[in-house]
């Protein structure tokens, strides 16, 4: 498939920006900085445009086409946010945020207790013996122990055995359970780290596949050479600065 000139140019830019952003892994350099700023600027501009488009389709269009005048009220509340640029009248911005917070909070709170507390608690009440399935039995026992242990670990107000942590039977049970809780959390963090690696590698595979595509390969090679030059230049600049710095400090020592 032959891409239009404009699309080919876009692919080249994308390839160059990708290489230059990855070049930070080796050394901070001028091309990385350029790409970073370009990305932030484009992202801000894009989000602003799409935000305006969404307001136009869901807020202004109903007023203009359907005559739904009620939509003027939220638009006014939205405009109040700009009040913070009005100096002594900055307080009017609070009415906008008050409205947004109020609506958001009431919507979330309406179902949060059931969705986030009751359902989760119910899901953690598991049968400790599953007939004919030893793996599930062990899994359920471990889950219950880790939940209790994890919760106990974060209870700071009460420790069995008092402040001196006397080696009473209840304290020993508490100690064993919190240890199980800690190990459970460690396993959880380990899984999280492994999954983070998986995601980052997947992102990298995606970018590398793109960089190796026939449309982007030429730009990738040129961008890599430029990035290598920028990294070398960055190293030499750093060395020059550190040499100048040490010469200055030795000069100051001699003077004193």
């Amino acid at each position: 498939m032959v891409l239009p000139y404009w699309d080919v140019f876009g692919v080249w830019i994308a390839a160059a920006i990708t290489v230059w952003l990855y070049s930070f892994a080796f050394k901070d350099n001028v091309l990385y900085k350029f790409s970073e700023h370009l990305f932030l600027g484009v992202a801000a501009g894009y989000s602003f445009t799409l935000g305006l488009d969404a307001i136009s389709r869901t807020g202004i269009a109903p007023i203009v086409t359907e005559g739904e005048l009620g939509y003027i009220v939220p638009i006014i509340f939205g405009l109040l946010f700009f009040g913070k640029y009005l100096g002594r009248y900055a307080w009017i911005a609070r009415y906008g945020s008050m409205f947004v917070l109020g609506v958001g909070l009431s919507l979330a709170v309406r179902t949060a207790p059931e969705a986030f507390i009751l359902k989760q608690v119910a899901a953690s009440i598991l049968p400790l013996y599953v007939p004919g399935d030893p793996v599930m039995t062990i899994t359920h026992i471990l889950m219950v122990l880790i939940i209790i242990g994890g919760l106990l670990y974060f209870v700071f107000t009460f420790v069995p055995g008092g402040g001196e942590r006397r080696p009473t039977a209840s304290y020993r049970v508490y100690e064993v359970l919190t240890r199980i809780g800690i190990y459970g959390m460690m396993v959880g963090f380990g899984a999280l780290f492994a999954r983070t690696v998986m995601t980052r590698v997947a992102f990298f595979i995606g970018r590398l596949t793109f960089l190796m595509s026939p449309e982007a390969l030429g730009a990738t090679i040129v961008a890599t050479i430029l990035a290598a030059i920028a990294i070398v230049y960055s190293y030499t600049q750093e060395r020059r600065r550190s040499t100048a710095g040490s010469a200055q400090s030795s000069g100051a020592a001699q003077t004193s």
Partner: protein
Amino acid sequence: MSVAEKIYNILSIRQLLYVLLIIMVLIPLLHPFGIPISISSRVREVYKYIENLPDNPKVLIEIYYEPAAATELEPAVGAILRHLVAKNPKIVFVSLIATGPIMFERLKSYVPDVFEKLKYGEDYVYLGFLTGGETACASLARGIKEYVVRDNYGRPTADMPIFKYANKAEDFDLVIIASSGTDVFEWYVRQWFTPYHVPLLFVALSVIAPSIEPFVAAGQAIGMIVGQRGAAEYELLIGKPGSALAAMDAQSFAHGLVIAFIILGNVFYWIIRLQRKEIPGR
């Protein structure tokens, strides 16, 4: 400096890890090995659920990710769409994130075979990016065409036949949320599942999976497809290999490298400590 310390110092150079990572990912991409993968029971359950959906299922798909995350999420959404399209679905696409419109256009070019079979306005519609986060999510559940008067391309939604079948939360057979963040899953659990009991399916990044696992375990979602691996398994199930399956060798090689570095780092760390007669834990 002992030999162990020298090796440890060499292993600590992060640039070395990056160069090796590039090599380990490039080799299988240039020369695929086809390492076999197994299909997890979780992905199989999702497949069965979609297989058992009635004909003309009404599905809402939330496209909530950025270009970087497309590598993990797009293959999964593509594979599910390829599976769904055989049932002549009515699909409403929506994005509560600003990058959604770009990602939707990318999705269309990723699975052109799917969109060729669907007629715009009748079988599918894209509402575009909607501001408001959870508030927008709640408004969609109450009535889509009343809330979104014009779609992503500026066409009026009032005349679109698709909304005769798929307008309110109660009309939908399934909501698929493909997201690179955690928030949006919570929004749909709060605004679509809890009040209306609409079945949810999560398509998530690998890193997000532990955060949303409690919703699946509690039955608030019918299941989840996690990352590139989950997508590869789904591609295998539908018998249409795609980009996720092609990336599995590179994933395996890269993970092997990270595991090797973790093992080597720990081995040399302990050797150095023992050489210095530092007894661990004291």
